[in-house]
């Protein structure tokens, strides 16, 4: 029988169409209130309760009873399930069988079809996903074969995606299948099929989310309404359905947490499989839906090729199956999802892998049943086989931890929705076959769902005939043919097995069409052999050892974070970058991360750890005023002329290798800036490069707010092949952008004077009180500028625009804080001094675009001489490693003193960033951000020996050899493990690169990185 399942479906059809209360019945009513009892089974009633030799009794779609001493009522169909296991149907809270990557030109996508809704098509919370029944048969059966009977599905498209539906995948009638029509609300930071440019970055997506939430609050309270907005309505009329937030990047957890606080919401997180890396940063226990797909081993053979795969990738391959374990042990509740895995076999293999990776069968089962049920608030209906629950269960040949685990049948709401042809492997073996008077040997080699492999040969002969065998319901068909190319028919036999498969007999026709009789008797010896071979199948259930994770989990990561922060450095040449200048032989006493005293002859406790720096130099940690390292999801929200609403702090990637490399270059703090694609960029993040810490710990807690502005070619999109006509395209338009923005900001400020807003440290919490005026996240930072609460770092090149912005600022009563790059600052240095703006410049870059034709390496020296507070910045992950050398170039170009040159990468950027009260110089009371140099800190013949932040040593040149050895050992260990993997498909080698953003970086598809 080629299509047993099809036939089954036809047979089942009338059963399923039962009990449609509201539907008219064509014909005679057919209500079946019979019981079904599944006896002699091993039943996993719930994750914590398993009963052997138990009976499950169901009626009318629900569980009536389950136990070992169940009385079977009259009117029961009894199914003997000896040797079988019964599980409650798995529930997938994030099923993705319908997922196709959203396409920008898809006319049917929710972002196109939404009407009367939000301006931005990525926002469509009013969209309601409704499944199209019946679900494609192949998909349905594959999911049922994976044990999953209940699925929660939504349209994975956009930032606010609308609601999902919870239903039985095996039931074809919408009204019977559906459990909850609007089960969940869905969110992400991916704009999906939206054709709009905005948002063009991860930070833009967050800003859009926030503004939409604020709009909804305002919309809910405003009256009379000027518009009907279905999206905002949907957000306000939100039912109590749980909200699920999909993380494409595990680091987005912070953003979701911030949104949850800001808008008083609770989100269930949908992970990408790397959540174990942030488990300790998640704060309070979270509900997390985690995938069950894990990376394939890399196809590594050649040791040179192996270098392409980083330790980070290797470690993730090893640790990925432990993701559920790590999250569980960290106290989080997890639900497991098949997500978009295409084959149930891969899904089952994933489950098995998880049970080998720290979690018990019960824990995994909970992640598949009770946990998703409670996430979705349907634990009273599904998830266990307790009486009263929906009769959703499947029968299998064992536990899913067993080798060869297979779902035999799946029942939803008391109806069988999936069945497999019975495969009686007990028939495997060799048989003495007699046809009429002739003796043959029939060998049934394998029997599975794909069919039977068998041979027939004359007794005593080696040459087998071409043989085709089919077995269904203990009926057997045998076709025997002879010859190679065009075999001629010998026999067509049909018959039945009896006596438990030890004997078969029947009749058939020979090559002349005459009827013949045949019989076959099983050879007992061969039967025992096949049993034995089953028993010896390798035990692959052994537990895997729990991988060690480092901080961050890659090369150069810490086994445990360093904490020691008190010591004394002695006998060093100390460049204080303060009035004291250069001390030829001095000590620095550091206590609890702060500098206690500096000078010669410092009296310190003898118990204090002493670092002898004789012959070496110590400087303050360098500060990079202009950096784009350690960011993700784009550095430019370029789609609008102003992106004041975006916050770079939302995009910090604390695991970026550039952090470690810059520590190795003596940099301890940086301003991470928005790019320069628009006149008003985004809000900066000021961080210390605390390698191994989370993003929150890196942010400098008492830093004032900064914002990036930009002028020139990048802003007017001169070097963009397709500027798409976004205003402004000239320096003329740039001025008007500013005048307009600050005019709007002034109006907004006066109208919003009544509005109360409280800022708490780090995370903004908006008061949820109704505002007469719509809060505008794009204008608020500009109001802060007008109120001198936020400061501008402005990317700038030529003198015309430098003068222009100062004039605009003066006319609105504020000052530009810093001109960054400022390559023609030397032309207008006196005007800059008059305005009070500082300059942060490149040492010697020029000729990379037309507007830097007049850039000169003497710029820093001229500005300094004129009295401008001048810094040297990098804007580049590589140059950030050599800021000292860049500063030193001003000694060559312009004759700056050594102290002045060093100040340009220490105290001067600290001043420009309003951080000079705690960093930038070596003075008592300041943060112990220090670099011990091997020699003169401005010389090319010098390197940082050690780099300290707040007294903690984050880099030590002397550790490098040891670290390289450790990296090599760890790499080899994991590669060996990969090479030991057999029978699994491998993935081609590919190397992941850390991002290197610059000012003018515009990325495509920030959400598909």
């Amino acid at each position, binding site marked *: 029988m080629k299509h047993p399942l099809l036939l089954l479906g036809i047979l089942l059809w009338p059963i399923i169409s039962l009990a449609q209360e509201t539907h008219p019945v064509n014909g005679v009513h057919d209500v079946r209130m019979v019981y079904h009892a599944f006896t002699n089974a091993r039943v996993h009633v719930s994750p914590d309760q398993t009963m052997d030799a138990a009976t499950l009794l169901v009626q009318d779609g629900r569980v009536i009873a389950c136990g070992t001493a169940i009385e079977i009522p009259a009117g029961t169909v009894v199914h003997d399930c000896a040797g079988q296991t019964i599980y409650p149907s798995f529930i997938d809270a994030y099923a993705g069988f319908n997922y196709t990557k959203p396409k920008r030109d898809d006319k049917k996508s929710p972002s196109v079809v939404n009407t009367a809704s939000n301006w931005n098509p990525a926002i469509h919370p009013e969209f309601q996903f409704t499944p199209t029944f019946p679900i494609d048969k192949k998909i349905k059966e594959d999911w049922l074969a994976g044990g999953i009977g209940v699925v929660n599905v939504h349209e994975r498209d956009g930032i606010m995606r609308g609601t999902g539906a919870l239903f039985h995948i095996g039931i074809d009638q919408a009204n019977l299948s559906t459990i909850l029509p609007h089960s969940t609300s869905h969110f992400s930071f991916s704009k999906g099929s939206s054709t709009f440019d905005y948002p063009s970055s991860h930070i833009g997506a967050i800003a859009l989310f926030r503004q939409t939430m604020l709009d909804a609050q305002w919309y809910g309270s405003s009256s009379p309404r000027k518009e009907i907005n279905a999206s905002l309505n949907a957000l306000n009329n939100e039912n109590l359905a749980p909200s699920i937030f999909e993380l494409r990047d595990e680091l987005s957890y912070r953003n979701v947490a911030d949104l949850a606080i800001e808008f008083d919401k609770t989100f269930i997180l949908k992970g990408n499989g790397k959540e174990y890396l942030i488990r300790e940063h998640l704060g309070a226990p979270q509900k997390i839906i985690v995938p069950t797909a894990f990376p394939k081993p890399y196809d590594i053979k050649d040791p040179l090729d192996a270098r*392409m795969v980083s330790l980070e990738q290797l470690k993730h391959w090893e640790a990925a199956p432990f993701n559920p374990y790590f999250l569980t042990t960290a106290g989080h509740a997890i639900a497991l999802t098949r997500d978009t895995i295409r084959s149930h076999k891969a899904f089952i293999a994933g489950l098995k892998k998880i049970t080998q990776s720290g979690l018990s069968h019960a824990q995994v089962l909970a992640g598949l049943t009770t946990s998703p049920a409670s996430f979705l608030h349907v634990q009273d209906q599904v998830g266990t086989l307790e009486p009263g629950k929906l009769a959703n269960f499947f029968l299998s040949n064992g536990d899913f931890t067993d080798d060869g685990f297979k779902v035999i049948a799946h029942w939803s709401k008391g109806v069988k929705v999936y069945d497999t042809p019975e495969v009686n492997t007990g028939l495997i073996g060799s048989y003495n076959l007699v046809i009429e008077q002739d003796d043959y040997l029939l060998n049934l080699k394998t029997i599975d769902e794909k069919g039977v492999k068998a041979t027939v040969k004359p007794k005593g002969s080696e040459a087998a005939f071409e043989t085709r065998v089919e077995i269904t319901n203990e009926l057997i068909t045998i076709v025997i043919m002879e010859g190679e190319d065009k075999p001629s028919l010998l026999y067509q036999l049909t018959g039945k097995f009896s006596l438990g498969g030890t004997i078969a007999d029947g009749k058939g026709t020979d090559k002349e069409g005459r009827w013949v009789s045949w019989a076959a008797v099983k050879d007992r010896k061969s039967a025992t052999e096949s049993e034995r071979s089953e028993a010896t199948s390798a035990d692959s259930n052994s537990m895997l050892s729990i991988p060690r994770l480092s901080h961050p989990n890659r090369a150069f990561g810490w086994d445990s974070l360093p904490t020691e922060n008190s010591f004394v450095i002695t006998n060093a040449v100390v460049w204080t970058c303060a009035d004291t200048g250069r001390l030829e032989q001095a000590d620095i006493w550091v206590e609890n991360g702060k500098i206690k005293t500096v000078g010669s002859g410092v009296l310190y406790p003898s118990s204090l750890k002493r670092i002898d720096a004789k012959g070496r130099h110590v400087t303050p940690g360098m500060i990079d005023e202009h950096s784009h390292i350690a960011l993700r999801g784009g550095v430019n929200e370029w789609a609008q002329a102003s992106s004041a609403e975006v916050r770079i702090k939302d995009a910090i990637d604390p695991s970026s290798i550039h952090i470690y*490399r810059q520590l190795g270059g003596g940099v301890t703090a940086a301003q991470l800036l928005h790019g320069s694609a628009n006149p008003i960029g985004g809000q900066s993040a000021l961080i210390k490069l605390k390698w191994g810490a989370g993003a929150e710990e890196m942010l400098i807690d008492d830093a004032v707010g900064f914002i990036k502005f930009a002028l020139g070619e990048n802003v007017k999109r001169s070097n963009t092949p397709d500027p798409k006509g976004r205003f402004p395209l000239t320096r003329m338009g740039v001025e008007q952008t500013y005048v307009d923005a600050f005019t709007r900001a002034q109006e907004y400020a006066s109208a919003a004077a009544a509005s109360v807003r409280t800022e708490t440290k780090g995370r903004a919490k908006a008061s949820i009180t109704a505002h007469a005026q719509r809060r505008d996240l794009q204008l608020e930072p500009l109001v802060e500028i007008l109120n001198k609460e936020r400061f501008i770092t402005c990317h700038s090149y030529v003198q015309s625009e430098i003068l222009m912005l100062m004039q605009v600022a003066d006319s609105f009563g504020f000052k530009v804080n810093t001109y960054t790059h400022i390559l023609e600052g030397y032309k207008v240095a006196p005007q800059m001094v008059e305005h009070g703006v500082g300059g942060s410049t490149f040492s010697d870059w020029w*000729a990379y675009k037309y507007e830097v034709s007049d850039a000169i390496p003497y710029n820093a020296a001229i500005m300094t001489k004129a009295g401008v507070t001048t810094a040297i910045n990098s804007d580049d992950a590589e140059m950030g490693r050599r800021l000292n050398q860049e500063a030193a170039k001003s000694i060559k170009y312009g004759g700056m003193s050594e102290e002045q040159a060093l100040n340009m990468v220490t105290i001067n950027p600290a001043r420009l960033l309003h951080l000079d009260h705690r960093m930038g110089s070596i003075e008592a009371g300041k943060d112990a951000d220090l670099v011990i140099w091997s020699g003169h800190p401005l010389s*090319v013949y010098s390197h940082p020996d050690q780099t300290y932040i707040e007294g903690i040593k984050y880099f030590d040149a002397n550790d*490098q050899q040891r670290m390289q050895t450790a990296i090599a050992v760890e790499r080899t260990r994991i590669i060996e493990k990969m090479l030991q993997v057999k029978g699994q498909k491998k993935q081609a080698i590919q190397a992941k*690169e*850390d991002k290197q953003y610059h000012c003018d970086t515009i990325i495509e598809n920030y959400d598909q990185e």
Partner: protein
Amino acid sequence: MKSLIHIVLLTFISGCLLGQTPTPGSGSNQRILIRYATAHIGNGEVLDNAYLEVQNGEFSRVANGNTSRINESDYDMIIDAEGKHIFPGFVVMDSRLGLTEIDQVNATHDFNETGDLLPNVRSLPAFNAESKIIATVRTNGVLMGQIAPKGGTISGSSSLVHFDGWNWQDATVRADEGVYMNWPQRYRQTGWWAEPGPVKTNKKYQASLLAVHAYFEEAKAYQALTSKHPENLRFEALADIIAGTARLYIRANWARDILDAVQFVRKYELKKVTIVGGAEAHLVTTELRENNISVVIDRVHKLPIHPDAPIDEPYWLAGKLVSEGVLVAFATNGDMEAMLSRNLPFQAGTAVHYGLPYEEAIRCLTQTPAKLVGVEERYGTLEPGKSATFFISEGDPLDMITNRVTQAFIAGKEIDLTNHQTELYHKFSEKHGQKTQ
């Protein structure tokens, strides 16, 4: 006599209109004496208290010791270089100087020809001797450059120029001395530099490799044709490479790509080959040495090629290669490479700090590149008979805090060390009432 020179020089400077490149040097056949200098010969040796005599544009005497018996009136110019250092002009390899002026203005680009197999394309006629960038580069001691095309699989021929001259013909030191090629990459960087995608296995690598081999096979066969009609200009341009008289420069970074390139070199018995880039060359030094293959390091100040690599890997690469017997020269390839050429000395300085002996570093900037481009008989060291192409620095030119080139000479002619940038410096310092250096 000396004062006359000064007047001449002053006339030059005042004659320079702002924004123009300096006028090329004049006054060949001058007899020049430099004395009391520390001379870094370029071959690894140093002469203290050296005197060097220049005549007819070349060194006629280089020695150390007493100069009291020298007759000052024999010279047109005498330079007392006490406490100063004298070096052969530094050479930047694989450079696009003069082939580009502004990185983001396409109209100024002349280094990337369209097409794939372009051995006949020549950089030399496109070389703009009056590039404003060049004037800022020689100020730091970089006086010569190998100007190389960058496009295609076979990019075309490179030439050595010195950085003084009215036009490319003036500037030419050796025309078409070699051919550049970009070796196919086993791993392909997806995305772009700022937003790198994963580095993926290049599925077309083997096919590209076969194509390169097939092309050379035919190029080789062509050379043996008795009648070369119709003439194939591309194959003609490879004649000297195949004959082993010109150098093939192969840009490759991954170790396995380099190994494939070495196999290729052996197969076609190429005599003169240099790997350019060579980020992983330190893993295959044996193969390089055995096949007499040198390395041009594309850039010292760059990021390690792998995230797990030692953070200072690009810094010690040169030292490691030299210590294992591989000839090394330097380039400043990559982003903004033309203008960053002026930092070539500092890149070598970094290499010195990370293990390259100082005089070896000087050799990598002078004698070795001269050897690679086949002009070692005339350039690359401060030795009698060699072109008087050199500079004098007050301090160590490899360190930014001491690099102060006071005078530079190309073929015996002193060159003007001012440039567009120094002029702006003076102009605006004056405007603001600031003193200049």
